[in-house]
């Protein structure tokens, strides 16, 4: 891979065949709402695209670098509140999303500096602690309305397609990042850290800096999703955006889809966005139970996630091994 002398953009272009299916999916998603203009369907696609983005973002740190974080609600919530506060102060929503990305990335440094001294489960536990602490603080912060939530007032007409295309662009950016990183030296370093952090350090990777970098990228993307969501919802509250459930959802999608791959987290997002929505609609009382059982099943049967199972199936069809 890195022996190839051609600059990366040219190499990516040369591999257009590999990416042809992705371009087709993207084109499909771009035209879809024009053909099927049911608002509820567009809303479902919109939400799914947002979940896909957080799932892909989480995978940069949790998948590629192997650092399992239960604290992504912090960035989601900070992004949501940053956009909300900025928009109410009269800032253009798209600039507000960028501000959200920056604040979330800054927050990720504050979280990462102490916690990346810990490894494995200890890191995971620390992120739970921080996430809960932030939620409690936000619940009691008076200028954002505390536990009763915060309303976003947008002085222009609501156009659902604006929101939809924003989410589509964001999800594409996230996937592009994921593809790009997996093909660079940065991605190779993250992969080395996941497989053996000590060996990586011994060969000149700075694990601390690499983890902080992946964390910041993931947080920026997650923060933007929080912002886009808050603009759409027009009302946010700490139990929702900072809730532990949000962290868990963000973590479960890549696990379901297939961790440390490009398309696994995307698949996980689709399953979560669409399937979970349908389960909620059909079994409102026991939807979490159904979801939990699905998860246990996946982890027991196929730790590689849906993508892993699919690859196994393909291999069996082709009669290899």
């Amino acid at each position, binding site marked *: *891979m*890195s*022996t190839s002398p051609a600059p990366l953009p040219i190499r990516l272009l040369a591999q257009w065949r590999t990416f042809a299916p992705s371009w087709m999916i993207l084109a499909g998603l771009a035209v879809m709402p024009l053909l099927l203009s049911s608002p509820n369907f567009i809303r479902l696609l919109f939400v799914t695209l947002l979940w896909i983005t957080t799932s892909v973002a989480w995978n940069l740190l949790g998948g590629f670098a192997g650092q399992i974080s239960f604290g992504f609600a912090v960035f989601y919530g900070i992004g949501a509140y940053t956009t909300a506060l900025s928009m109410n102060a009269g800032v253009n929503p798209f600039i507000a999303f960028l501000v959200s990305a920056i604040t979330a990335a800054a927050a990720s440094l504050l979280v990462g500096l102490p916690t990346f001294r810990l490894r494995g489960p200890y890191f995971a536990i620390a992120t739970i602690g921080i996430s809960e602490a932030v939620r409690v603080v936000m619940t009691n912060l008076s200028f954002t309305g505390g536990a009763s939530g915060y309303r976003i007032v947008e002085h222009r007409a609501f156009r659902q397609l604006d929101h939809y295309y924003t989410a589509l662009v964001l999800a594409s950016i996230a996937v592009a990042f994921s593809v790009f990183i997996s093909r660079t*030296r940065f991605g*190779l*370093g993250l*992969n*080395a850290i996941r*497989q*053996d952090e*000590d*060996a*990586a*350090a*011994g*060969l*000149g*990777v*700075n694990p601390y800096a690499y983890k902080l970098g992946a964390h910041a990228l993931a947080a920026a993307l997650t923060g933007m999703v929080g912002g886009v969501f808050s603009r759409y919802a027009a009302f946010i509250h700490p139990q929702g955006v900072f809730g532990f459930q949000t962290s868990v959802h963000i973590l479960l999608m890549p696990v379901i889809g297939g961790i440390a791959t490009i398309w696994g987290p995307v698949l996980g997002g689709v399953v979560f966005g669409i399937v979970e929505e349908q389960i909620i609609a059909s079994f409102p009382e026991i939807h979490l139970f159904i979801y939990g059982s699905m998860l246990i099943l996946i982890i027991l049967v196929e730790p590689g996630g849906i993508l892993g199972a699919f690859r196994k199936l393909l291999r069996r069809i082709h009669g290899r091994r």
Partner: protein
Amino acid sequence: MSNISESSILLSVQNLEVSYGPVQVLWGVTLSVRKGHVVSIIGSNGAGKSTTLNAILGVRKVGRGQIVFKQEDIVRQPPHERVKRHMTLVPEGRQLWPKMTVEDNLLMGAFPSTLRKDAVPNLSRVYDIFPRLKERRSQLAGTLSGGEQQMCAIGRGLMAEPELLMLDEPSLGLAPKIVDEIFEFVRNISREGVTILMVAQNVNYALRISQYAYLMETGKITLDGPSEKLLADDYVQEAYLGST
């Protein structure tokens, strides 16, 4: 040691103390490595040999002491800075990334940006030394045999253009025939001008290919001298080479 001129010493370690939590394992280790030499540290299990190498590379924190590499005290530098100064460790048990290809494992050895521009010529140099790795370049490292994995680990170390190559138990867990082969490689690499500091429980081999050796026991250097002297030493003979 005082008769050796300063400039010919590549690495000098002074009064190194290392603890694992409350348990101190190195009690003031002092050793030095001359440019171009093969130096070995021998001793039994748990004597602190691997800890010494890890401390020199910086993956193990040092409590007290000095590590001078190329006339510069590096004891406070993080490992990735030390790698940039051209020292590298082939760790015990090899620590390859089993799910990366052989070639990616090797390229990881040239990870710091300063080494990266020469990664391609260095790769072909490693393939010249270990033709077997070239045949298996696109195979996952986890699927190699033990001997090939050791070659891959040494090759990965060479990718950092080391002036000091540290080898931790290069013969561990390998068949006797492969052990011969690996030590032959070590000798060839040394002939190319790479200075080698090697830890080995295989005392016989270690003393035969090194010029100077240190005997380490319970965290201290208890004996040092030219390797042929240690090989002839009664105590070493009795305790480590099993002759009576």
